[in-house]
């Protein structure tokens, strides 16, 4: 009954996450948009778990563990980059760009 609205909301949230990644230059904000996409997928898992068994909810658990690991390592990388460049803008991360 709630499956169709849940999948619709999930699709919109995932799209907003992608739009955020495309729209922003601040590395931390882009990171938050990636978290938004992960959460949209979690909503899909939970919605489908209602009709297809609790395996979906177990998978949400794993997605959260991976998201926590990703956040810790990613923010450490951002800290390391900030120390070199004094900036978190992706415009300044052009070491591999020619010219």
């Amino acid at each position, binding site marked *: *009954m709630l499956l169709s609205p849940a999948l619709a909301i999930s699709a919109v949230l995932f799209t907003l996450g992608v739009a955020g990644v495309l*729209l922003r230059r*601040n590395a931390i904000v882009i990171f938050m948009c990636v978290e938004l996409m992960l959460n949209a997928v979690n909503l899909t898992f939970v*919605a489908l778990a209602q009709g297809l068994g*609790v395996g979906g909810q177990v998978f949400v*658990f794993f997605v959260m563990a991976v998201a*926590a*690991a990703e956040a810790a390592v990613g923010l450490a990388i951002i*800290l*390391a980059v900030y120390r070199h460049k004094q900036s978190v803008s992706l415009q300044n991360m052009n070491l591999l760009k020619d010219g």
Partner: protein
Amino acid sequence: MTLTVFWIFGVIAMGSALLCITRKNPIACALWLVVTLFALAALFVLLDAQFIAVLQVLVYAGAIMVLFLFVIMLLNLGRPGPTDIKGPLGLLGATVLAGALLLLLRPLGEAPLPAGIQLPPGTVATLQQQRGMVGSVATPLFDTYLVPFEIASVLLLAAIVGAVVLAKRKL
């Protein structure tokens, strides 16, 4: 009634997600994302996943977002400065690409599930009544999904070591 409440929280989630990606200040972005995560927790409760909703509030809204805010404040990014949102061309590109993605994703919500993989109605509700909200998730986690669970623990250990190595000035 449930459908109305579901849509209310869904609209809150979508609206705050939109505000999250359009605010200039990173701290405002983070706080709007917290609102989205809380609304999603409410949606999880309505979808009969109370344990996952509690985890969402504790792990996501609690731990991960505090980590984000901590880094934003450590790097002193909260002060007013030039916007990091791309110009009209970037806005156009993002809107077009995101719109195309939404057009692709939207029909998935309407497609009927194949009957062969669907459980009889009420199976999950009965399981949750028999084993409790935590037990119905924990039993498969330590039974069917034991190996992935152990791998997740190794992943978290690797993340801890990696974060320390990357963030430390001098080892």
